[in-house]
């Protein structure tokens, strides 16, 4: 008798959510998380990204990293659309707590409340949190 997971062939499409909680600089999490998303795009899964806590800063317009000698990788978020990564969710509370609004972000996103985002997370098959 086959187990349920053995019936999933190579054509399986799962809901993958990448949860970004950290500021873009200071640690490497945001940059390496983005690298995962770009690679994952080739696997044709149902991909979404969520930005919360300091992770909302990753999408802030007008990033200038000259002073810290690091590469400004924020333009990459604009390229996500080309990889068919179009579902970007930003937590409303995290934006508000940091004095930010949707207009401060460099890509179109869907802003949603903490509870709605929690429900969305509940619907996912795989959550990768960085």
């Amino acid at each position, binding site marked *: 008798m086959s187990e349920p*997971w053995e019936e*999933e062939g190579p054509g*399986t499409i*799962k809901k*993958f959510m990448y949860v970004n909680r950290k500021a873009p600089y200071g640690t*490497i*999490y945001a940059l*390496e998380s983005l*690298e*995962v998303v770009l*690679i*994952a795009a*080739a*696997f044709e*899964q149902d991909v979404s990204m969520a930005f919360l806590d300091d992770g909302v800063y990753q999408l802030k317009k007008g990033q200038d990293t000259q002073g810290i000698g690091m590469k400004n990788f924020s333009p990459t978020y604009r390229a996500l659309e080309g990889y068919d990564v179009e579902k970007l969710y930003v937590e409303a509370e995290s934006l508000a707590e940091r004095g930010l609004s949707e207009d401060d972000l460099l890509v179109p996103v869907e802003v949603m409340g903490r509870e709605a985002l929690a429900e969305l997370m509940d619907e996912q*098959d*795989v*959550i*990768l*949190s*960085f």
Partner: protein
Amino acid sequence: MKYGILVNEGPYQHQASDTAYQFAQALLDKGHELFRVFFYHDGVNNGTRFAVPPQDDRNITVRWSEMAEKHGVDLVICIAAAQRRGLLDEGEAKRQGKDGNNIAPGFRISGLGQLIEAGIQCDRLVVFGD
């Protein structure tokens, strides 16, 4: 159940890799399948055989190697993260013109696709990180 594990933090610095190991051991003891452990971010440092922790402490790398040998667990180190942090196997050392390699037994270096594949194949992908 079929499990995948993602380890995002380095050994000794952070408890994530200890907890991941203990979780892995517990699920194997219960008769579950461990499809793969993927090491990302500083987690790749779990796979260096050059670490020499104090003798009265646990040896995290040796512990993973022994698990791989005993249970045939697939320990995969992300190549992009490894290159940044100086983790090399024989092939990579040759390709990059380095004078040695430091990967521990039971570990192998491969791409991020291995992480996504674990997400697709496994019933649960459990992330251990900060």
